């Protein structure tokens, strides 16, 4: 075998700590290596041409590139080699940048390590074999999980491109948090007014199957070929007959037992309810945890008043299965609550702010409801405890966010803007009121954002104080906010009528569960992880699964919408072809030695191992062996390691290849 070794300087990135020329020189004398050279940028056109030229001139069978991480340019180099006639799977990458030059300072030891890394790759490639991609058909239907603005946008984009979409929302209505907002920054246009038409469009779209009050139960299969099971939770109302007249809701005798989720617990709702007037679909749900009928077997008031006989107390959860080609996760966020947390919780509560027990210390979403025309106070700014107009309101930013001691390292990104908006809305409605904002830094880096904050300060007279609030407590009907003005260097004490906390944005608690269902990674906070932070920001490490909106990280509406459209575009790219080429890294069984213990089947997460009977010519059963369905296999290799007789091998990561890599270490 003739192997070509190409060492990339990556400008200075590798070259500064690794003597690339020495690496190439050392490898040129290594057994099996027919050609070795170093070049400034291997990934550039001239760099790729060097490789292609060497392949042709030296008749190379395999190529090792010492460059950046294979996650960066493996594909680039495979493609370049393929165009020069070397099978793309005869290419191995030695990671000389992320795993060597960038993490070491000492040139001799970094160079020695680089030589080792290239040698490992050379030894592996000696056992590589030319492979062909596996071709699988693509189901051109998308699943969108979450019906907030991100999910809505993704679903509409894909549906408008002519592909069917299944949109699954766990709440009774789509709309998400955006439906709760009063006005949106920096234009102060009414949130409901811009969102509702989109919601209706989803409802009416012939390409969209809308499943509200539903959750994804199971995800099987792989890119282009998922099989998704959705649990449609029992609404206790037959959605196909209900007209949404609302009589049941009006007549429900339960009025005060249940807190309104939509109004962030500022009001109550009946047991049978529609979350908000503009809900889509406008079909009520019975909350079985508070409904009298489910507790005592009596009442049935809603059933009595329903002219359409739509109430069905016996309704069961149903399960629907869909063939899906691409999945977009848009599960959104929630706001952190400052309540006391159990011992060991990743987030700590805020005892210094009263653990959420002070009635007029509210969070951002609660303020949105108070400021909303459709909210509990019809848009009048009244404080929750006594419904009086607060004359002095303190807004506190970064509650949770950017506070490692409370468990959050990240910035929630939208609070600076919405706090400015809140303060502004307050000043617009309470002209003689005083608004104070405690902030750490003002992060207003969006189009028109900084102007918006300036307007709050300069035109509306909101008083910005740089510093953190150390304590909030109640005294004589006032909320004493103790803090510090770090610019003036003085301690502050404000006797406020109401306090609004801009608490951190955290992922929905189900986020990690959904991520596990989908088999995609999530970070320590539970935000889903993209595959590359810059170049593949909406893709996940699992093919065919994309991310939209705040399930990935805190983001505002325009960003969520942009990301949703990006995720939709990614799904549509997939739908653009009928056949999908998959990596040939799949397991393969050697039937002659397989003992048929089927431990491989037990460890396979994809049900890719099937049973195959081996019979002689007379039809007598010789044995039953394992067989890999290459369409389902994802190439993890767990079967390979589990097989006691070593009859299963993972192509591309065969034992021989890994042994060669390990053995190459003995020469060091």
């Amino acid at each position, binding site marked *: 075998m003739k192997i070509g070794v190409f060492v990339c300087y990556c400008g200075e990135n590798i070259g500064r700590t690794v003597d690339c020329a020495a690496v190439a020189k050392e490898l040129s*004398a290594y*057994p099996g290596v027919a050609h070795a050279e170093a070049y400034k940028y291997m990934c550039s056109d001239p760099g790729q041409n060097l490789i292609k030229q060497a392949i042709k001139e030296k008749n190379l069978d395999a190529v090792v590139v010492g460059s950046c991480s294979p996650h960066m340019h493996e594909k680039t180099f495979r493609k370049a080699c393929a165009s020069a006639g070397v099978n793309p799977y005869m290419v191995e990458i030695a990671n000389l940048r992320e795993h060597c030059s960038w993490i070491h300072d000492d040139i001799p030891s970094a160079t020695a390590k680089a030589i080792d890394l290239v040698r490992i790759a050379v*030894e592996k490639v000696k056992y590589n074999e030319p492979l062909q991609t596996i071709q699988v058909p693509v189901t051109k239907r998308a699943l969108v999980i979450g019906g907030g603005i991100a999910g809505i946008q993704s679903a509409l984009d894909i549906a408008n491109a002519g592909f069917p979409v299944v949109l699954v929302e766990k709440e009774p209505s789509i709309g998400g948090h955006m439906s709760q907002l009063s006005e949106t920054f920096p234009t102060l246009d009414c949130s409901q007014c811009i969102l509702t038409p989109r919601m209706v469009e989803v409802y009416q779209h012939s390409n969209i199957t809308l499943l509200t009050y539903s959750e994804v139960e199971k995800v099987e299969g792989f890119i282009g070929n998922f099989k998704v099971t959705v649990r449609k939770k029992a609404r206790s109302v037959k959605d196909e007959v209900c007209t949404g007249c609302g009589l049941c809701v009006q007549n429900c005798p339960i009025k005060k037992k249940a807190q309104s989720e939509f109004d962030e617990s500022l009001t109550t709702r009946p047991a049978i309810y529609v979350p908000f007037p503009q809900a889509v679909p406008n079909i009520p749900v019975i909350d079985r945890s508070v409904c009298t009928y489910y507790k005592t077997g009596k009442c049935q008031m809603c059933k009595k008043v329903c002219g359409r006989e739509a109430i069905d107390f016996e309704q069961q959860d149903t399960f629907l299965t869909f063939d899906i080609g691409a999945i977009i996760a848009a599960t959104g966020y929630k706001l952190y609550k400052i309540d006391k947390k159990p011992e060991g919780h990743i987030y700590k509560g805020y005892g210094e702010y009263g653990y959420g027990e002070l009635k007029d210390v509210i969070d951002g979403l609660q303020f949105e409801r108070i400021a909303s025309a459709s909210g509990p106070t019809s848009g009048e700014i009244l404080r929750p405890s006594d419904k009086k107009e607060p004359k002095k309101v303190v807004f506190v930013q970064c509650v949770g966010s950017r506070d490692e001691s409370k468990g959050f390292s990240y910035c929630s990104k939208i609070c600076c803007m919405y706090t400015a908006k809140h303060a502004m809305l307050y000043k617009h409605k309470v002209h003689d009121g005083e608004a104070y904002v405690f902030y750490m830094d003002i992060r207003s880096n969006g189009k028109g954002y900084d102007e918006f904050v300036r307007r709050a300060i300069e035109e509306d007279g909101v008083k910005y104080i740089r510093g953190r609030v150390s304590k909030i407590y109640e005294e004589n009907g006032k909320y004493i906010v103790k803090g510090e003005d770090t610019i003036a260097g003085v301690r502050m004490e404000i006797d406020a009528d109401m306090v609004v906390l801009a608490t951190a944005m955290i992922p929905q608690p189900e986020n990690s569960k959904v991520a596990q269902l989908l088999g995609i990674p999530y970070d320590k906070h539970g935000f889903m992880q993209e595959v590359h932070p810059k170049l593949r920001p909406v893709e996940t490490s699992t093919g065919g699964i994309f991310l939209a909106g705040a399930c990935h990280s805190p983001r505002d509406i325009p960003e969520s919408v942009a990301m949703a459209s990006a995720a939709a575009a990614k799904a549509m790219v997939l739908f653009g072809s009928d056949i999908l080429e998959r990596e040939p890294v799949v397991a393969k069984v050697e039937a*002659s030695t397989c003992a048929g213990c089927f431990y491989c089947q037990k460890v396979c997460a994809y049900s890719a191992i099937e049973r195959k009977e081996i019979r002689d010519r007379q039809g007598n059963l010789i044995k039953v062996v394992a067989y890999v369905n290459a369409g389902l296999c994802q190439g993890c290799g767990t079967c390979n390691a589990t097989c006691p007789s070593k009859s299963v091998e993972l192509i591309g990561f065969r034992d021989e290849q890994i042994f*060669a890599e390990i*053995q*190459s270490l*003995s*020469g060091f």
Partner: protein
Amino acid sequence: MKEFIINTDEIANLISSLPADKWDILAPAKDGKSFDYVLSSDKPIINSEAPPSKISFKEYFFPKSETLFYYKREANEISLTEPKFAEKKLLVLAAKPCDAASLPILSKVFNWDYKDEFFNKRVNNSVIIGLSCAYSDESCFCTSVGLDRNNTKGSDIFLTPFNDKQYVLSVVSDKGDSFVKEFLPNLTEFTGTKETKEFIDNKPFDYKKTKDWIAANFENKIWAETGEVCIGCAQCAFVCPTCHCFDIVDENCDLNCGRRIKNWDACQFGVFTKHASGHNPRNSQEKRYRQRVSHKFDYYYEKFGEVLCTGCGRCTRGCPAGIDIGEIVFSISNQ
């Protein structure tokens, strides 16, 4: 044959007086319940009533693993080096007659078309002091293969107990003669008569008759009957004093060096005859068991004029499946 009288003190003196840098001493010692040949043991056991050790001493002549040569690659050059051969002498003390007899048998195969240099060197560098045997159990059958308690085949010197403290030392070979002259120059010559117990063979058979029967009964059902309970391990072959199959493999020390090595192998292993194509001519345990018996009592006899067995019974005593080769040959011979 020269005979001397030697007492136990003189044997002890011999052990301590041999220069340790030139001589290794191999003698039976007790390891838990069983006996074993142990190098330079501080408690060598010279007891004719002791049962055979759990494994024969063949590994000191035909090691379980032996390097043939080393190879090393530098740039694209490959160099070979011979292993160093330890030119140390070996005294085997109190070898059972059924063990000592294995060396002449093995010598035939190791000097047939190719002379095994290492084996021959080791034999030439050794002196075997055999000890008359007073042990027997239902697995023993040395008399059926032409040996007996006092057989000196393979021994250079042979000891026969005379009384509690004394042995009759018989000089068997020239090597033995020079050893006695060098290390035991002051022994008194023995002129009396020796008495030994009679050996009762539980399964006397005629090995010549057996050979003919085996040669004529390749397809006999007896092989299936005896081979079916064989589980295919190599216990029998590896404890056997005469089994001598080996496998040659290359083993790397790293990517650029390694060695060619000769390891014990056995015909009872399923992979022993497996071809690279995947075809296996001895594809069932009964065929493999037939091979073992046939090789010992037919093929070897055919080629070298003696059976490949000393009747020590080790294979039977240790067989996890309770197979008794002596019984099989006994039943064949008495058909």
